[in-house]
């Protein structure tokens, strides 16, 4: 189990090889958002003072200093206590409010199955389930998910027994490079439940795009409907035909059609 992490205030910044990489990253990217990763580092033998930190990151000194000054009374940089259940395991965390659910999963809990594709809600690679509902974890601040049960790709299988959608993606060769796959599978798991619960989609009926609101939620989804309902997950390899086949097979299996 990953250790709960403590966001440290700036005057107790740790030194760490990762921190050195991050410094470089700040220098290169001048993206203020990366600083939270530094602040979130744990375990250190050699804490830096805030002064040292600003001094070391010479090129980024202006940026770092402005970030420090922009922080409202330093309070934002302290962790806020937050409890989350991830893949059935409860985590009590101290979270800096800027940390997205995706960064929490990947950077702190080392659940790297959820992928950071675009980090802007445009690709779906970071799709996870929150209380069974599919969301994109890159635009969800972790702290807003307090109390929820998050399921990632790592939490779908029951021991060695793959989730039917995981098995179907293998069976139907539903990927090429695999980068979008965990998002595709999480998305499909929730999508089939949504459809069975009566969530409408859009589908072309008699040449016209209409609400697909079949009262018979036991009828199999058409390929057209599967494509519409899975359109929040992009696959740059273009494995779509096989992805549709994998999803279709599980839909039909569940509905026994």
């Amino acid at each position, binding site marked *: 189990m990953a250790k709960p992490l403590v966001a440290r205030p700036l005057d107790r910044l740790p030194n760490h090889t990762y921190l050195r990489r991050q410094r470089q990253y700040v220098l290169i990217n001048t993206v203020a958002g990366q600083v939270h990763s530094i602040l979130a580092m744990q375990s250190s033998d050699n804490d830096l003072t805030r002064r040292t930190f600003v001094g070391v990151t010479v090129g980024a000194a202006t940026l770092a200093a402005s970030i420090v000054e922009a922080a409202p009374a330093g309070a934002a940089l302290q962790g806020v206590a937050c409890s989350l259940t991830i893949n059935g395991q409860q985590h009590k965390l101290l979270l800096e*409010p800027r940390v997205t659910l995706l960064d929490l999963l990947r950077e702190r809990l080392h659940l790297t199955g959820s992928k950071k594709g675009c980090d802007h809600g445009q690709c779906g690679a970071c799709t996870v389930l929150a209380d069974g509902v599919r969301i994109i974890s890159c*635009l969800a601040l972790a702290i807003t998910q307090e109390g929820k049960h998050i399921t990632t790709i790592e939490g779908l299988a029951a021991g060695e027994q793959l989730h039917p959608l995981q098995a179907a993606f293998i069976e139907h060769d539903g990927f090429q490079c695999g980068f979008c796959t965990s998002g595709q599978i999480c998305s499909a798991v929730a999508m089939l439940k949504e459809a069975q619960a009566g969530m409408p989609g859009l589908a072309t009926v008699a040449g016209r795009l209409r609400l697909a609101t079949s009262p018979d939620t036991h009828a199999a989804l058409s390929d057209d409907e599967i494509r519409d309902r899975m359109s929040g997950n992009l696959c740059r390899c273009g494995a779509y035909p096989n992805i549709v086949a994998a999803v279709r097979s599980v839909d039909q299996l569940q509905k026994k059609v």
Partner: protein
Amino acid sequence: MRPFTYSRPVDLAEAIHTGQRQPQSKYLGGGTNLVDLMKMGVERPAHLVDITRLPMAQIEERAGGLHIGAMARNSEVAAHAAVRRRYPVLSHSILSGASPQIRNMATIGGNLLQRTRCYYFYDPGYTECNKRTPGSGCAAILGYNRIHAILGVSEHCITAYPGDMAVALAALEAEVMLRGPQGERSLPIDRFYRLPADTPNVENEMQRHEIITAVALPAASADKRSYYIKVRDRNSYAFALVSVAAVLDIGAGNRVRQARIALGGIAPKPWRALEAEEALANQPAEEHSFRNAAQLAVRDARPHRDNAFKIKLAHNAIVRALMAATNEPV
């Protein structure tokens, strides 16, 4: 992203109070636009008031219409039986927008406040943007402006409204319910949004610390023939180049009793084609009338270098939406 503090009040009064007390605060809904804009450095709040768990997510029939709590998720509204039965154009518009994952997160109130997708606004690397930095100029007017507006623009901003749901709400003449430090009020959605004129940074009539509490759909707009068309570069998960919500009331002799037409993607706000609506009254509900109306709707269009195609596209989309609406059940 600029650091910020965070709070999650449990009731509306406390949320407003927190908003007032915390300098540079913003209310947080689903975060699908705000968090992205914060990552880009366009939005830089010092405090976020998370209002997603306030008890205002209910969808219920009221006064013959429908009352939709502002924290209802887009997907819940699209799936709601009364919405689908009585206001199907709203479901259709919501399901045309974003992705299922984003619709599961996005709230009705937050969606109304979605900001433009003008690339120059979204990227602070461009210093010129009157919306982001009043007085700095507009990079889009002389830039690449294919996605920009052709109606309602000013010399200071030519941004286009990107959303879908509010376009349907405009055609349904929805009311936006607000609550702030001064109490409650409501605005018709058409008056809720502002055109850029010489203050493109002010996008709506909301006052500081006000919260959208609900959207009310009037009984008068229920049970009409309606349709939503969205034209875009790919078939899903893309913003509209042009979208049209058409709501038709057809009376005896196949004559239009009342038409409501709203457009997305072609103006800085959901755009009511009022002249076209008036011209359709008492006309036969057929293609010839719809073509005349569409002509009126785009008559005052002012294209820029890359978006003149939107004039013809909007015209044709209006005709198609109206034709399709006549074939929809009441």
